[in-house]
């Protein structure tokens, strides 16, 4: 009788351990936002014409603010997203990255398309007037300012380097800090694709 009780208790403990492992809530690598309203919609210009955030309802949209002359953090972040999409495989079709240029003076839609295409063929780069970009950047919490650069770059742009994820219904869901790895992005995107 004692053995049966011990085995039952052991089975419950083993079950609990397995249950916690398999049913544990997903731990996001970014900050989860529970916004009651859809994210600010905008329309800017890409190489193939106007692009609106709302064009991508039904997909997960990653929004990144950067510029093509960006020497380090923009290429690093875009490379990580590109790797993450490669890890996700076929389901990457459910994800769209949009880079919003913070440098409308130098970043034409064509230059943007060429730049983002180096990191993943699905990436889209968009730009607009300074006023349009100021509005979109502000409402997504992105501060930026122009600073002096080298002779080659003329000027650089300091900017908030977060990566934002908009869910399929158009709500801001996740904010990744700069430095998030490709694996971490892939983990969170896979979870959101399954939902």
């Amino acid at each position: 009788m004692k053995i049966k009780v011990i085995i039952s208790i052991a089975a419950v403990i083993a079950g609990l351990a397995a249950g916690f492992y398999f049913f544990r809530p997903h731990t996001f690598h970014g900050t989860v936002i529970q916004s009651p309203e859809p994210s600010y919609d905008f329309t800017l210009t890409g190489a193939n014409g106007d692009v609106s955030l709302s064009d991508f309802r039904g997909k997960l949209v990653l929004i990144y603010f950067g510029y093509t002359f960006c020497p380090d953090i923009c290429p690093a972040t875009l490379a990580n997203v590109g790797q993450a999409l490669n890890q996700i495989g076929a389901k990457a079709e459910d994800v769209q990255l949009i880079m919003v240029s913070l440098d409308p003076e130098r970043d034409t839609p064509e230059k943007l398309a060429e730049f983002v295409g180096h990191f993943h063929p699905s990436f889209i780069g968009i730009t607009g007037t300074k006023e349009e970009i100021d509005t979109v950047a502000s409402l997504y919490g992105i501060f930026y300012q122009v600073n002096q650069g080298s002779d080659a770059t003329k000027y650089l742009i300091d900017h908030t380097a977060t990566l934002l994820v908009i869910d399929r219904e158009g709500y801001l869901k996740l904010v990744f800090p700069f430095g998030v790895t490709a694996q971490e992005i892939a983990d969170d995107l896979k979870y959101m694709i399954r939902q």
Partner: protein
Amino acid sequence: MNKYLLNGLYGLLGFIVISAFAFKVFQPIKVLPRIQIAPAFQLTDQDNETLISEDLRGQFTLYTFTYTNCPAPCYNLNETIKEVQSRLDEVQLEGIPVAFVSISVDPTRDTPEALGAYAEAIGADTDVWTFATTENQSMLKTIVGTGFETYYEKKDDGSFALDPTFVLVDGWGIIRAEYRYTTEVSSADRILRHLGVLAEEVRNSKGTTKLAYEAAHLFLCYAP
């Protein structure tokens, strides 16, 4: 199926259901919702210095929207800020600074000099309480109207239709609480309680306790 395995399975399912139910009902941890990203901005303050949103990272910031010619409602907002500031020692903030920012919606009249004179007149401690605005009316509307969702409009007599509002933003630049139409000084109690809730979350946002806090967000265990 083996009887012992079945017992284990029943135990597991029962435990998970009871735990989730108990967490939802008793809400052992309270949090404030992560409502939205606060807008980024560049403003000019009462000392003619630039105030950018990034300067406020790492601290809790309580925003209000005002103008120096504003009658009673703004006075009440100011009194609430003063009360919150004077009672901050009642909250365990763990060294996290609290900043107060009043954004003027009337940049035409509210020059840095006017903002400075106003701050002095109401007895504001400008070490922690900043008065700022921008001459770019379009961006001001974007920041205050769309970003902080606070309606304002200039009337023919030069005054403003303005919703008295407080917005509490955390150290990551995320809006965590909004207090609308509450012009009574007593709302300082609620703001102070919320500052304590935020500080406690920051203190526990490491390791396994972080999981419990994320569960509290998941189950919408929001502080009243």
